[in-house]
């Protein structure tokens, strides 16, 4: 009897491998393999036109002497700094406002989410129009109230801020939905007990909501930072990295190096630096989410 059960289990295990095999092959060929291949390419001067030689760590050394790369790196972190904290605060605020049962509340949630589902390309296009220095809607409003036109995407000092504002607008609904799920996990009794003790809504928010949402906030913080470090579509459409590299990001510069200048080795080294940063952030996220679920 026991022997028969074992063969059944063994036969079942074979099916298990079979079910996973196609997916595993796909992941190996299209994700895991390329990650290793990418590391190898980053040690070469691979140029699509010429072939390649191994040059060791030269690409990495060159990167840190490349002013444009350093600028892109700084810009990327600046972009994350502009979008992430503001995005978190606003999405938490709206989630707290929308976390109630009331007529018509669903409509607000629906509307907030529309920018999330539409492509970065189409919203970048319309925002380029809104930001236009000469006929843009935003400048026309400024002019109406007696202010001067601003070169939203043409002034090197504010071009990144302009892109960031659009990205905050686009991502609000996403983070708000995560926060709404977090808020629904807070037991109502806590608020009732606090009401009995005479706590004001502000105090309740500071002493109950915020601390209990800490895991959600960590999650949103790390995921939004990872997203911000990968910014490409909006830059490609709105500014192309300009003016004067003021909006050049790591991925934009990587794209230009790989697919415009065909410097595959150099671009791969860039990709690896980005990979290490993101992997590090993900690992923190993974570690924390484990301790949270154990709590």
């Amino acid at each position: 009897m026991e022997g028969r059960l074992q063969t059944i289990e063994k036969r079942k295990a074979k099916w298990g491998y079979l079910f996973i095999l196609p997916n595993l092959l796909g992941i190996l060929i299209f994700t895991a393999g390329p990650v290793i291949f990418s590391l190898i390419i980053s040690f070469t001067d691979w140029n699509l036109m010429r072939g390649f030689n191994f040059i060791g760590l030269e690409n990495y050394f060159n990167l840190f002497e490349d002013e444009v790369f350093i600028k892109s790196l700084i810009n990327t972190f600046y972009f994350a700094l502009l979008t992430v904290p503001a995005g978190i605060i606003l999405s938490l605020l709206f989630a707290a406002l929308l976390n109630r049962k009331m007529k018509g509340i669903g409509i607000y949630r629906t509307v907030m989410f529309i920018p999330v589902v539409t492509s970065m390309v189409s919203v970048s296009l319309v925002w380029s129009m809104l930001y236009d220095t000469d006929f843009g809607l935003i400048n026309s409003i400024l002019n109406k109230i007696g202010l001067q036109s601003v070169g939203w995407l043409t002034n090197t000092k504010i071009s990144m801020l302009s892109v960031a504002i659009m990205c905050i607008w686009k991502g609000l609904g996403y983070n708000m939905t995560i926060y709404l799920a977090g808020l629904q996990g807070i037991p109502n009794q806590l608020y009732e007990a606090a009401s009995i003790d005479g706590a004001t809504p502000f105090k309740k928010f500071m002493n109950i909501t915020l601390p209990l949402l800490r895991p959600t906030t960590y999650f949103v913080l790390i995921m939004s930072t990872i997203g911000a470090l990968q910014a490409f579509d909006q830059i490609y459409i709105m500014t192309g990295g300009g003016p004067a590299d003021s909006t050049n990001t790591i991925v934009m510069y990587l794209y230009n190096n790989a697919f415009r200048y065909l410097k595959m080795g150099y671009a791969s080294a860039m990709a690896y630096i980005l990979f290490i940063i993101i992997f590090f952030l993900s690992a923190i996220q993974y570690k924390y989410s484990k301790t949270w679920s154990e709590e």
Partner: protein
Amino acid sequence: MLELRNKPVVEQKKSFDYRKKIDFKKIFFHIFLFIICTFMIVPFLWMLSSSLKSQFDIAKMPPVWIPKPPQWSNYIELFKGQPMLKFILNSIKITVSVVIGQLFFSSLAGYAFARIKFKGRNVLFFIYIGTLMIPAQITLIPMYILISRIGLLDTHFPLIVPGFFYAFGVFLMRQFYLSLPVELEEAAEIDGCNPFQTYWRIMMPQVKPALATLGVFTFMNTWNDLIGALIYLTSVEKFTMTLGLALFRGVYSTKWNYVMAGSVISIIPILTVYFVGQKYFEEGITLSGLKG
């Protein structure tokens, strides 16, 4: 006890100053949210409005909101001047293929990870989780070299087939299969089903909501993808909708009305999917927030 005694008091208090206080609060609340929602929606209204403007109205200051008369011909011009229909069909073909492939392969692997015991299962699953930390950009260059070596540049292959395999899909499906009762499988096995039949006939139909969630997300990501199409495609007639839009930006650099008309067309399908499957979008985001 405490709760019983206190509850009526709280309710009384509410109904007591209901007219004076709560109504005012409610109105303020709605006005505030209305303003916020206006901010969220204005760019889209502007997109629609601009798409119906003449070349002259586009540059008009102060701007016009309702063009007179609306230039519906912009949309027709777009279809005449560019292979617009091709772009739409290409995007539909790629997106639908990726969604079907992704659902099939993820659900199959997710089921095995959740319900079938085999050696090395946990190690493999750990590796899967690990691949979630890999940013897509790192695979761009090696993938481009691979695709060019096998002679499939400028085809839809690199936009479709790699899209079938995504660790997050496997992860999501596994979570759903884990929540199903064991009795279902046992009954199927007693009836003589092999594991594939058990999966296909009994288990997969149980996780339809999960398939819908993964489906709408895959649809959104694939429909909105730019960089894949940008690096692999060179012939205009093979372009996707998003790449077509980026192209319009260059071709019609001064004709914003056409670019906006293209944008409006490109967001109709994804908005339709969103309005139909809103529940699944929200569920998917909630689940991704709880992963790990």
